[in-house]
């Protein structure tokens, strides 16, 4: 097991090298650059030349790349050209917001999706089954930001039940020791703040959850249907085991394998969906950060954020692979 994990982590090195080179070239291929993006109408040829010289953008690509990689191996992702602050610092300031959103969305998708898929399979052919199939189709096709906008308009603007943007009510004075707003309320003993943070998460999490939810429902349903037809289930029923025991011990456990694969793959979708959702709900996560960085041609910020997301993606999928061994003893990896 340890060798397996080590080998997978070692793969990260060539992945990151290749990715960093691609990113480096791609951002510089984008038209324009940070100087003109920052200065707009105030840009003059002298100003741009001055900027490029001071930020080392007038050197050859190889020089710039070598300098950049020299920093990356020391875990220094450079500085934003907009704020002149380390990219890594800015990333950590905003990452908790994205994690909270992604986890909340995953929670909704799993907590609603798996039971829904299970019951759709058990009541195969009934209205519950058919409507969940249709609902999942709708969930996959509605663009996340449109759904977000709709939810915001109905529940925040017209009904006023939930907040329309942000992570927390701007009028609440709260300390943020962990920067996970839901946790911060608990840690500082301010439960009002925790409820408020949860309220702010509801709409964006529902919007973001729409795609993984739809997929989890379908995969669970298909997987459960498969398992329900297996011999060992019939054997268990014949043995006289209760429905509850059969579901837990035989059906669910076997059906979960493909579902957990899906959940792992959904991480990628969740991270990219987070970018759209964060923009609609003005959440200060890495999604909004990346969008602004691209607009402003903030090379180091763009490269840094995407590299870190790549690392996260590899690690999450590694965890999914390890989880196979837990769910299914037959697939224990060496």
């Amino acid at each position: 097991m340890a060798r397996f994990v080590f080998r997978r982590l070692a793969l990260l090195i060539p992945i990151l090298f290749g990715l960093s080179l691609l990113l480096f070239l791609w951002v510089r291929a984008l038209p324009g650059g940070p100087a003109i993006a920052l200065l707009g109408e105030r840009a003059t040829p002298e100003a741009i030349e001055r900027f490029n010289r001071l930020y080392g953008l007038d050197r050859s690509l190889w020089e710039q790349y070598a300098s950049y990689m020299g920093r990356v191996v020391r875990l220094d992702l450079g500085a934003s050209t907009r704020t002149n602050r380390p990219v890594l610092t800015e990333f950590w300031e905003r990452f908790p917001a994205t994690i909270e959103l992604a986890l909340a969305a995953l929670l909704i998708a799993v907590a609603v999706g798996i039971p829904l898929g299970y019951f759709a399979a058990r009541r195969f052919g009934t209205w519950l089954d058919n409507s969940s199939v249709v609902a999942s189709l709708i969930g996959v096709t509605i663009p996340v930001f449109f759904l977000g906008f709709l939810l915001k308009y109905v529940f925040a603007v017209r009904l006023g039940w939930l907040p329309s943007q942000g992570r927390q009510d701007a009028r609440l004075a709260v300390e943020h020791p962990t920067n996970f707003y839901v946790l911060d309320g608990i840690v500082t003993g301010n439960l009002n703040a925790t409820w408020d943070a949860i309220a702010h998460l509801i709409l964006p999490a529902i919007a973001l959850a729409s795609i993984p939810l739809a997929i989890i429902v379908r995969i669970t349903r298909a997987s459960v249907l498969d398992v329900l037809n297996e011999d060992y289930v019939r054997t268990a029923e014949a043995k006289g085991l209760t429905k509850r025991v059969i579901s837990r011990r035989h059906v669910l456990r076997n059906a979960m394998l493909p579902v957990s694969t899906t959940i792992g793959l959904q991480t990628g979708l969740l991270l990219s969906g987070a970018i759209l959702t964060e923009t609609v709900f003005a959440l200060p996560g890495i999604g909004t950060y990346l969008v602004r960085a691209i607009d402003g041609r903030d090379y180091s910020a763009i490269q840094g954020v995407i590299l870190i997301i790549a690392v996260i993606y590899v690690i999450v999928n590694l965890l999914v692979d390890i989880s196979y061994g837990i769910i299914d003893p037959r697939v224990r990896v060496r």
Partner: protein
Amino acid sequence: MRHSTSPSRRLLALTLGGVLAAALAGCGGDSGDEESAGATGGTLVFGTSNDPVILDGAYVSDGESIRPVRQIFESLVTTKEGGTEPLPLLAKSWETSADGLTWTFTLQEGVKFHDGEPFNAAAVCTNFDRWYNFKGVQQADSVAYYWLTVFGGFAKNESPDTAPSLYKSCAAENDTTAVITLTRPNGAFLSGLTLPAFSMASPKALTEFKADEVKGAADAPQFTGTFGTEHPVGTGPFKFESWQRGDRLTIARNDDYWGEKAKLDKVVFRPIGKGADRRQALEAGDIDGYDLVDPGDVDALKSAGFQILERPAFNVGYIGFDQAEEPVNNPKIREAIAYAINRQQIVQANYPAGAEVATQFQPPSLWGHNPEVPKYDYDPEKAKTLVAESGVKNPTLQFFYPTDVSRPYMPNPTANFEIMKANLEAVGFKVVPKAAKWDPDYLNAVDSGNAGAVHIIGWTGDYGDPDNFIGTFFGRPKAQFGFKDAAIQDELARALSLSDQAERDTIYKKANADIMTALPGIPYVHTKPNIAFKAGVTGYVPSPVNNEDFSTVSLPSSN
């Protein structure tokens, strides 16, 4: 068996129930309740378009950083409420020497910085010398834009094209007298000082929190001090309280302020990227007001009972000519175009209420504006005559316009272009449209004089001096306009060098008339950006130069 409550079903019910409970509880803790009754006190939440970059005035030139800086810091001079003339602030009065090189400022007494340090002439000189001695990345236009604009260069210019500095030295004669010496006479200097870039910071805090520390590789410079991120110490009516990046910036009333204390307890700035989202936040009650209202939202907000405030126009949208290109090198052609364009139609069709037709390259709110400049009222027949007189057969115009952008002076460039094209074709011009993406293609093209014969662009002023408008456009030959006019350049240089306001006003009025005779372009619009507030918020005075003070603002007394 159908009704068995299996674990998954119970879990589902619990989760949904919990989620609903959280939603309702969360609503209870929202808004309103924390605001105190009465005209003073309370927390105002203001929606902005972006997080500030840093809270060190010397390092910023973007509106969203300037907004909180203006509340925390003060400069020697400020602008008249809602206007542009310089008025005393930290300097009670000032005198200029006869040669215009020495400016003696008499300072306010009894002023303290938020950290208790005294504000005095030594502090003034510390600040000026700090900026003058900027090195490396501190000299970049994205950092020290306003120093570069007003003073030109630094003690040691790192770039060959940086101009020699206007600033020579500062001396503290005594605690309340600061003498600034310039290298050449310059009348725009005083207006320039109203900028937040020249606001006074506590010398102790600057040193203690390493405001000038720059680390990192030469090509990845980082400001590592915490002055601008955690300890921005000024003299203003508000003190910095906290900053959760991307979430909110909180400032609190300075109860030791030397002037009239702020009415609000706190102001919270919350960045919300899109105008549509800011609007929804206002409608949902999450914020009390916001800036940069989308023109399309103004009417809807008004009918829903919200307040819409207008900022006096301080920008100009114009058609520019590149006289290095034919046929606009011909003055009669330029005149013909001026008469052919129906500016009234463009402003009426493509601009929100409050926009006005421009007659010259600076807005009426700025002194030096000349009501008697040559006007080119819409007259297609006259245009046709001029085209005929010009001697140019089948005049063709390469007309550049930008896409993928909305500017305050030009919300919809394509719509403007369409009307202009129709106007021009009606009098016999052939128009060759050239669309280019604003960033970077269009900007690069215009800057380098590669934007055809005609282009549309504009400018938003930074401070209340005509040099910031017509000086910027025509003070030196620019590739954008492709011409040299020594007479106009000399006029502008002379006006810049004088200190007497009345004298400068006369020269700028003449310069505006001369410019509109020479017609290097056709200004057509000044727009008024809008700020929205919920009903009952009072005391916010919009300023043409975005010098807006939250200390006079109050929340409604009841909710």
